[in-house]
């Protein structure tokens, strides 16, 4: 098992190289010169363009650029961003931190809300509660996050003043964006939970648990839950990864300085070092999370063998 973990981490390195190589190729073929214009659409002075090209090695062929990136990466250097010309690691560090904070808050809400809703829906299948959960979850899906976020903002920040309008990274300012983010995934978690729970509820060992005289909540939260969470955990892993990758619309609405929007802006500006930095981080996050999830499988269901 220790070996398994080491092997997976080894794979991560390969995946990282693969992902960044693909990314480099994509960025390379994208039309447009990353340093060809100013923030607006004014053309840049050719001398400056020349200077920046040389500085960032953009005049070199793809292979060389990638090679440079890898050598620098090994040294822990992610390069300099093309607009503000700051260290990418320095630009991204606070953003990563912010995003991670928000993601963590969101995933907690997401899991609690989603699992509970799923549980209720499965237990009282086709009852009022089940339909209510279904309705709420569909609403969460059908109404885009900017709608939900804006409603929160005008109600709770502008009208009631409960939360700050402009997030400053504090706990209080995290609540609205976290809930906005959590709602969609909670809806999905609820659906997944409901689906698998229904299956498990009829299993023989649930009967055994009842026959043992266990209180209902023990039967549900221990015996049923544990057997139904594998798909849920899988999805939570993915969704946590997604959250850690930043949520552009929510971050934008609440002015949360995370990497989601940074990435979009970077893509729009072809600020490649930032893109590559974020993707490198994102791949690492996903590989590690999915590793964790895979390990969790073995804990959650001992029948699953990891190879």
């Amino acid at each position: 098992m220790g070996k398994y973990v080491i092997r997976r981490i080894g794979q991560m390195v390969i995946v990282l190289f693969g992902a960044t190589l693909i990314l480099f190729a994509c960025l390379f073929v994208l039309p447009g010169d990353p340093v060809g214009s100013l923030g607006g659409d004014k053309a840049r002075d050719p001398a400056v363009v020349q200077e920046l090209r040389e500085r960032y090695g953009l005049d070199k062929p793809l292979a060389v650029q990638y090679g440079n990136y890898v050598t620098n990466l090994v040294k822990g250097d992610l390069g300099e961003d093309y607009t503000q010309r700051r260290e990418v690691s320095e630009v991204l560090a606070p953003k990563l931190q912010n995003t991670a904070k928000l993601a963590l808050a969101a995933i907690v809400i997401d899991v609690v809300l989603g699992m509970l809703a799923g549980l209720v829906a499965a237990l009282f299948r086709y009852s009022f509660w089940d339909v209510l959960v279904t309705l709420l979850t569909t609403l969460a899906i059908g109404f885009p996050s900017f709608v939900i976020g804006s409603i929160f903002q005008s109600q709770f920040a502008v009208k009631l003043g409960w939360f700050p309008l402009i997030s400053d990274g504090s706990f209080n300012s995290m609540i609205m964006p976290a809930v906005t983010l959590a709602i969609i995934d909670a809806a999905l978690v609820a659906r997944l939970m409901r689906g698998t729970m229904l299956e498990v509820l009829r299993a023989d060992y649930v009967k055994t648990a009842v026959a043992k005289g266990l209180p209902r909540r023990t039967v549900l939260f221990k015996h049923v839950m544990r057997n139904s969470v594998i798909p849920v955990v899988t999805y939570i892993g993915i969704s946590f990864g997604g959250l850690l990758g930043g949520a552009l619309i929510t971050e934008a609405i609440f002015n949360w300085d995370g990497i989601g929007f940074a990435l979009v802006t970077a893509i729009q500006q072809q600020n490649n070092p930032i893109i590559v930095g974020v993707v490198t981080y994102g791949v690492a996050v996903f590989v590690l999370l999915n590793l964790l999830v895979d390990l969790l499988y073995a804990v959650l269901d001992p029948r699953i063998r990891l190879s």
Partner: protein
Amino acid sequence: GGNDSKSDGKGGAAFRLGITEPVSIDPVNAQESEGTLVARNLFTGLYDVNLDGTLKPKLAVSGTPNDKGDEWTFEIKKDTKFSNGEPVNAEAFIRGWTRAAAKSSASDVAYHMNGIDGFKDLNTGKSDKFSGLTAAGEYTLKVKLSAPDFEFNKKTAHSVFSPMPKVAGAGDNKTFNDAPIGNGPFKMDGSWQHNQKINLVRNDDYGLDKAKLSRVEISILNPSSSSNLEYKGFESGQFDWARMPTPQLPVAKAKYDGQGEWLKLDSSGVNYLLLFTTESQMKSADARKAVSYAIDRAEIAKGVYQGLQEPATSLLPPTFKDVYKPDVCSSCVKQDKAKAKEYADKAGLKPGDTLDFGYNTGAGHEEWVQAVAKQVEDVLGLKVKLNGLPFKEALAKQQEKGTNGIWRAAWSADYPTADNFLSPLLSTSGINPDASGKALGDNRGRYSNPKFDEMLVKARETKDPAERAKIYQDAEKLAIDEDQALIPLWKRTQYRLANTKKYDGVKMDFFEDPNLAEISPK
């Protein structure tokens, strides 16, 4: 409205506003209005600009060109200091300009110094001295130009022409970049907290009229929702100054106009259609005129913009008082279907022909672009092919040789000279093609008329302002009316909310920013 405020911190009220993350706040590379807002409040240069495009002297006691117009002498106000105590003299200016133009700074705004002797050498690293600049006395700055330019003084209103203290070091001095020490009405309170905040406090040693605000708090907002947040922030009393999302303007106007908190300014910019004059679809001036006549600007301004944008009938903006002339573009004045068809016939445009219409997506252009496309289709029977691309890709497509049809574009002024519009957008040198034929300059329509180019050179050499203005007007008429090298669409009209309940004298300046140095708390 914003009447109560929580952040009445130390030493009186802080004026609060939101901007998006600037590229730089160091004059060396401050470029968009957010960056220059901060830079111009931290630094004071030779001139500022009035709303009508005239110069407002700051540290310049006088600025005089020689007869030929290729050498300028500026007398600088004596005994002013940087906030760290260093004197602001001719050397400080030379230091600042040299720093910006140096190769290592790779400054995006240094090109404004293009006309000064020795710029090329400095900018390409061949030299580390700015040969065109000399300190003729402690407070006398001599500027030698490589070609005559009687409007050079206007350029120096740009923040890149700021003086610099010795501590500034080179242009890529990161510490200084984030906490510049200047000679402006305000100084930094702490460093720039990227993506979070920039705080300014009054510079009590300011050499000119001191600011009345003790403190300015600038929140940095996400670009995609900044106007929304600014507006909501103003509504909830968190900001004293705000932009608004265009769709919300009518409601905001209704709410705040009556209370005197609504500011409007026809500012120094224009929205227009770029025409690829070397490619088939828009090669003939008649075809271009046909398209222009087919557009009902007024209807779109009213329907799509709720009457809050006004049609433009010239390229040069109304803020350029000396050169502005409405209705230069005769095809812009009013939709004229008959004329449109007439010109189309002349140009051989037939119903069913394709017209490519490019624009960059995600920047709020979708609506009016569709409206224009529809009108052109309806009037001329053309098949308009909309092609929306993300910004950078759109730019690449514009630059490419062979891109056909029309493209959405806009321009706004760096300083109040007609040249700042006409030269980059329409002169042959503005094409700046590379080996592969890409137009790397701002004249992506590749309009090229030797007569027009000559007129621009002549204008720069003309000392008499009135005469010069006349030449510029003629040049504009040639390019925009006769040749229809591009199609003006709308003026750049700006709206702001300002907390006039708490503050006196809040105005929008030439650069569309609040006039921080002049605002006073009630």
